[in-house]
Each structure stands twice: as C-alpha cells, then as structure tokens.
C-alpha cells in the first residue's frame, strides 16, 4: 500500500506501460472499460491510482477519495447506515448518474434492510457476495477493489458503494445522462431506407447496431483511449466474416495510441490510417447504423467512438466514396445510373476548370468553330488570362461556401443570394470574368456537392487547384501529368492491407458488381474478395424471383 494519494507528475501520466497490469480482473462482471493507455506502476515517481487498494476502514477510503475528488463540486457523497448496522458511503456524479434511481430504489432499500440481516452481514466481513445476494436491489454490479477502477466507475456515471469493514466496493450501473434523441441522419439523408442515425452516446450506438445484427458473432471490444477524456472506443466486427489479421491490426493501432483526449472520430482516423501524408481519406465514416451493419456484413470492421455520432469503417477502398447507402435501397437500374453520374461528377469536380483553361489557352483547335467563336467573343475585353480568371472565381466560390457553412441559416441564405447573384452578375457585366467561366465554376461546384462523401469532395477541391495551375501552365499535357501522379499515388495507398483502388487495380472482375454499377440483390452472391474472403458466399444461388409456373389458372372446360 503506497502512502497517501498525491497528484502524479505529468510525465508519469504518459509513460508507456509495457503490459497492462491485471486490472479489470476484478470487474469481470462488467468488462465495459478497456485498458487505459499510459500510467506506469513500476517506474513512475508516483504510483498510479490502481496501486491504492481499498481498505476495510471506511474513513480511510473516504479521506483518499476526498483528496482525489477535491474541488469537484459535481461529485456527490452520501453516508448512511445499511440496516442501521453497517456504515456505507455512496459516491456518484451529479448529472451522470440516475438520481431518481439512486434515491428511490438504492438508498431506500439499503436503509430499510432488516437490522438482523445487516448485523449478520457485518459479521461476515469480506463477503461481498452475501451483500449482493441479500440486499442489493440492482443487477448490473461490479466489484472494485482499488481506487483506480473506483474512480473510473464514478466518472463513467456509476454509483460506487463502499461499506465499512469490507475492503472492496460495489460499482452499480446507474448511468443516465442527457443526450440527443436518435434522429434522422443529417449528412446522409435518404428518400427510402432507415432514418435512424447514431448519436453522441456510445451505448445507444452499439444498441443500434446490435438491433440490426442479432448474432453472438457480432463482437464489440472496448478500448479506452485518452488520458483525460477516457473515451470508450468500441471495435465491432462479425467474428465469422472479418479478417482476423485486420481486427488484430486495428486493435494494435488503437492500443498504441497515447493521447490526452479523443473528441471526434477524426482523432482516431488520423492516428490509425496507413498513409498519413496522403490527401485522400483512407477511412470511411458514417452516421448511419445500417451502413455500418452492411459494412460488417461485408467483413469490414467498425470503430465506434463515444461522444461522436460518426463511426469509422475499415478497410476502406476508393469506390466506397462514390457509393451511398441508398444505392442498395432503390431499384438497381437507377442506382447504377446514379453511380455512373457520381463518377462523372467526380471527374468534373476535379477536372472541368482545368480542361476549360487548357482548351481556351492552349488547344483552341479542339472546339468546334461555332463554339470557339462564342467563347472567344466572350473572352474579348477580359483583362485576365483564363488561369487567373478561373482561380479568382474558384476562390470566390470557396469563400462563399466557407462563409455560408458557419453562418446561421437565414443569414447564410442571404449571403448565398448576395454571392451568387449579385457578385456573379456584377462580375460578368463589369467584364471581369466571362459568362462561360461562371458556368464552368458553377458546374464544378454542383458536381462537388454530388459526391456522397464530404471528405472525398474536400480532397477533390484541393486537387482541383493543383490541376488548374498545371493546366494553365502546360495545357493538356499538364493535366495528364497531374492525373498520372494522382493515379500512381492512389495505387501506392493501402487501407489495412487492402489496395485502395481495389477492385479496379488490382483487377477483380467479380467485384465489379458493386463498383460503377450495382447489380441486383439476387446477383450479389459473394462478398468483396479482398475483404470478406473468409466466407465469400453471401446468399443462396438462384435467388432471382420467378413467377410460379402456373400463375394463370387453366381455363375451365366448356366455358368461352
């Protein structure tokens, strides 16, 4: 037993622990907490909280807790007698724990326990099981025996009960805090399909997935990250489908993170992606539980993070960014058409201004004569070269968009009207820019909104400027150079062992069923070969529905 609790040095907090100590052994009842990263019990100048065991002396425990929770006004401590015989103390955090439950059920039951029972319990000290069996009115109970896990339980919203004469405490699950209701997804709304979205509460999110995948094969491992935020992160996968190497790798990367806090899934994304220097997003995120469930069914691994409605999906390939979950809920002709349209939009968003600049600057001969004359007469009197003109307009567009994103909605609308109509119109009539250029930039903007994934659209926005400069200096040859460099770069990327451009490069013909077109559900017989190869068969063969053989009743004899 180390001395009285003191605050550890900052450096000690972040020292890497060689192997997580045997904590969590005691709360095997309730293994919700993972291993926290950091904190070293052997070499640190101050022992970690886990070193402080609970003692049988209630007063001593409470003194230490007093030190630990000094000046924490939201921590509530309440002492009372269990059945007028054992002195007990309750500790919970106001607002995180269900006060009504604690007051109405827990305290009342414990206080009103029969006195003889309490006395017999007091004699059989160190036998917490008896307490649980005889007086405890709650089901979700964990035994804690050190300050570390006690504090962690309290901070997670549990109520901890310490009894005089017992060197262990009971952590009772009373978690209930204010959170948003499950609403429609904001970033990925659909016309047809489930309308539930993840919320900021991790437990609700895991429930949303569990409700869709009712199988014990759906595993949910918890990792606790963030020295101060103690964010619970759930690693979820279907054990029969996910590649164990990928699961192991995800777990390894998550556990090697040493950080003070995790506030959004982007923190995790940036810390576990394969190519941190690439401009391309390598981990897909979604706020739709059905999308996560579909990904898990393909053999992917989901990462849910407490405090954010966005879940991560790994491994991710490029085509996922032009797929939307609604593709699978609409008729496949339409879905395939929309996918092709999105692919075209992706190319327009990246290339259209560059191509326009290249054509008007270097390759005028490409245009049909009529069009060439039109464009040339529009550009007549414009004082800038096409490149500068394009850069100016693109920059204006980006500024308008950026200004509109953060403003409250009514102001944002006014701004977009001012920006789009007034500035655009005025710039054209002042012949600062040509009308054709306005059309090009507007088309580009619309196309970049047509990309289902916002993170991919951002990347394209950035690359568009590079392509624009290449086109303005070297014409089509510059565009081609840029495209080749992007192609090579995309080919070097991998996401958890899966080539980023799969199944296009390396080529896998059977996986083309879900790239630019979506084949009907009854033809989607296998999982993506790079990801779900452990159990490639997805459904029975020959599922294509047919009308029954004798759908028309045979005409009755003698009639007609």
């Amino acid at each position, binding site marked *: 037993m180390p001395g009285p609790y003191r605050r550890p040095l900052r450096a000690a907090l972040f020292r890497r622990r060689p192997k997580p100590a045997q904590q969590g052994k005691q709360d095997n009842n309730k293994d919700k907490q993972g291993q926290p990263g950091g904190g070293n019990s052997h070499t640190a100048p101050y022992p970690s909280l886990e070193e402080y065991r609970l003692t049988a002396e209630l007063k001593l425990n409470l003194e230490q807790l007093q030190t630990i929770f000094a000046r924490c006004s939201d921590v509530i401590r309440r002492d009372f007698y269990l059945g007028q015989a054992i002195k007990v103390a309750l500790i919970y955090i106001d607002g995180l724990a269900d006060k009504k439950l604690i007051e109405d059920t827990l305290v009342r039951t414990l206080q009103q326990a029969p006195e003889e029972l309490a006395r017999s319990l007091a004699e059989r000290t160190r036998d917490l099981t008896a307490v649980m069996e005889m007086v405890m009115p709650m089901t979700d109970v964990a035994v804690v025996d050190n300050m570390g896990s006690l504090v962690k339980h309290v901070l997670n919203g549990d109520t901890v009960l310490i009894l005089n004469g017992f060197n262990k405490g009971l952590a009772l699950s009373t978690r209930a805090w204010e959170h948003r209701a499950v609403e429609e997804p904001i970033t990925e709304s659909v016309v047809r399909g489930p309308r539930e979205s993840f919320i900021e509460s991790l437990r609700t999110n895991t429930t949303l997935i569990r409700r869709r995948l009712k199988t014990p094969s759906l595993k949910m491992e918890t990792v606790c990250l963030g020295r101060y935020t103690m964010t619970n992160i759930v690693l979820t996968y279907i054990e029969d489908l996910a590649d164990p190497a990928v699961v192991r790798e995800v777990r390894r990367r998550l556990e090697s993170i040493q950080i003070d806090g995790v506030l959004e899934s982007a923190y995790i994304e940036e810390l576990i992606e394969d190519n941190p220097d690439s401009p391309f997003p390598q981990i897909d995120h979604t706020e739709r539980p059905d999308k996560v469930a579909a990904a898990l069914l393909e053999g992917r691994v989901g990462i849910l993070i407490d405090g954010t409605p966005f879940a991560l999906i790994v491994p991710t390939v490029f085509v996922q960014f032009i797929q939307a979950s609604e593709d699978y809920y609409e008729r496949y002709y339409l879905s395939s058409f929309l996918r092709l349209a999105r692919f075209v939009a992706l190319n327009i968003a990246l290339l259209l201004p560059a191509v326009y600049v290249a054509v008007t600057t270097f390759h005028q001969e490409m245009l049909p004569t009529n069009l060439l004359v039109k464009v040339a007469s529009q550009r007549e009197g414009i004082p800038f070269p096409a490149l500068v003109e394009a850069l100016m307009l693109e920059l204006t567009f980006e500024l308008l968009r950026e200004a509109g994103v953060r403003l409250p909605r009514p102001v944002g609308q006014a701004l977009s009207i001012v920006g789009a109509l007034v500035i655009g119109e005025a710039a054209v009539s002042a012949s600062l820019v040509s009308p054709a250029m306005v059309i090009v930039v507007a088309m580009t903007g619309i196309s970049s909104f047509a990309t289902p994934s916002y993170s991919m659209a951002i990347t394209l926005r950035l690359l568009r400027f590079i392509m624009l400069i290449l086109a303005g200096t070297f014409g*089509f*040859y510059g565009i081609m150079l840029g495209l080749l460099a992007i*192609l*090579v770069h995309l080919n070097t990327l991998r996401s958890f062992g899966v080539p980023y451009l799969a199944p296009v490069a390396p080529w896998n013909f059977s996986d083309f069923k879900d790239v630019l077109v979506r084949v009907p559900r009854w033809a989607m017989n296998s999982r993506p070969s790079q990801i779900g190869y452990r159990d490639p068969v997805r459904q029975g063969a020959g599922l294509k529905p047919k009308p029954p053989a004798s759908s028309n009743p045979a005409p009755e004899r003698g009639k007609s």
Partner: protein
Amino acid sequence: MREEGYISPRQASVLLWFAILPTAILFLPALLTLRARQDSWLAVILATLAAGIPALVIYLLALRFPHYTLFQYCELILGHLAGKIVAMVFVLAFFLLNAVVIREFSEFLTTAVMPETPFLFFACSIVAVAVYAARNGLEVIARCTDFIMPLLVAFFVVILLFATPEMSLRNILPFLENGIRPVLGGSLITWPFMGQVIILATYGAFVNPPRSLGWSLITGLLGIAFFLGLVTMGVILVFGACEATSLTFAGYNLARVVSLGQFLERIEVLFLAIWVAGVFIKIALNLYVVALGLATVTGLKEYRPLVAPLGALNVALAAYMYRNISEIRQDLLTVEPGWTLTWQFILPLLLLLVAWVRGQRRTGA
C-alpha cells in the same frame, strides 16, 4: 535483392504490352512502310513469330531459375566476374533503351503538339512522375496498367472503328508485290520494338505463380501483334503505303483523320492523353528495371535510392543522344536493329546455352 510484392500473370502480360506498344504504334508504321510497303502488316506478324524465339529463350531460362531476375542468373550462370559484366551490359542496354524512349516521347510532343516548348521540359516532367512510380515498386506500376489498359483498348477500338470510312481496301493491294524480301527487311526493323520482350526476363521473376510466365509471354506477344498489326493495317488502309512513309507519327495521324459527324472530332487530344499514359508506364517500367539491375550488380539491398539519380542521368543521356527527330528515325532504321538483336536475342541465347552446357538450374530450392 528482392522486390517485395508479386504481380499476377495477367498484369505481367499487360506490362509487356506497355513495354512495347506505346512507342511502336507511333513510330513503327512509317518506318515499316518504308521497307515493306503495303505488306507491312505481314512484317509485323512475321516479327511476332520471330520474337517468339527470344520469348522461348526467356521462358526456358525462367524455368531454370524461377524467382531469379535476369541480372541475378547472369551471375549464377557465368560466375562472379563474367556474370557481373554481362549483367552490367544488360543494365546499360536498358538504360540506353530508356533514353531512346524518353527522347522519342519528348520529340514527338515538341514536334506535333507544343512546338514552342523545349523537349527537355517534357523529358524532365515525365521522368519525374516515372521516378515517383518506379520508387513505389513493380506492384504499383502493374496496378497503374490495370487502370490504363481498358482505356487503351477502348481507344484502339474507337479509332479503328471510326476510321473505317476513310479506309480503302485497294491500299493493301497488290499483295507481296516485290516478293518476300522487303517483308523480311521490315521484320528486322520491327525487331528493336519486338525484342523488348526480354524485359519480361527481369520483372518476370515476380510473377506469381512463376509457372504461368509462359502464358504471360504468349498472351503478351499475341496482344502486341494484334494491336500493332491492326494499327499498321489501319495506317496503310487509310493513307496508303506511299503517304504513310512520310508520316513520322503514323498512329497520331490515324487519330487525326477520325471524324464522326460534326460531333466527334479532334480525337487526337484523347490519343495524346492515353499515349502519354502508355509511355509513362513504359518509362517507369524501364527505370525500375535499370535501378533493380544496378542494385543487383552492385549488391545493394535497396534499389529505391538509385531511381531518382538514374532518371536524371537518363534525361541527360536522352538530350545528348540525338540532335533531332530525323536522327532518331535514322537510328531506328539502321543502328538499332543490329544492336538490339545482339543484346535482346544473342546474349540471352548464349546465357541459355551456357546454362544448358554447365547444367545449372535453381529449382526446388
């Protein structure tokens, strides 16, 4: 010196197409018609048959030394010193070949597309991107071909289909007007391009499974013969043998004549785009092979640090080698056939003979 990562037999054969086709479709038809006139397409087919012999040599060597590159089994066959010297000859030959390709590429772009831009700019920029690709290894180059190959094939089909209105069947008649000799001469000119199948002896070591290398060679050669024959045939059918000899960039001119209604015109820009992508693969692949070979000969563990300096040297050599495009043509007509025949055919054949006589193989290890 091992490359980590493997490529599939299909990728190997497509890489072979990219190692030969891009420059061949541009320069070869004009040179061929100079010798073989309207029978050039026959010369292409004969040259393919002839290229089957070095392909067989490569295949037999690969069977003797599976998982070994050309540079490695040179040393295994000929011993330490002689092996290193021969391997170095191969490295230099590939280096020279790459310089020719870079120069052809940049000369074409300056002559046909952007006459005011110095050719050195094109050479430097394409080699910079190729260095980026080669540094990332064979797998990445192979995956790039997976992406570009469908575009290339679709483009061939579009050009040849839409050029049909301009074609006239009389252009390939009379058949064998001057006997077989000019056709054989044409095959010899085709050789510098076709003989590059030897590049499969280097990256073929990374084909998985190694036994399917034969399949890669056959499909690779057949594909090359098919596309090259079609383009040559198309050029002769559209322009006739007389006019074709004066077109330095025959494939490009073929794309220029394509016109469909008032809508599909000026398709040659697309040709440029896809052709640049093709030559890019060719240069990246050659650069990779040169760097890999040099690393093998010098016993380095990594080839990656060599790629960028070799690329820079390659550009310098490309700038130094010829004065203008006519010199390239002259070189391709007179010097290259003999030189390439030496290192792409006779040298591997000698290697195979020595290996056979000394009974060397590295199988089952």
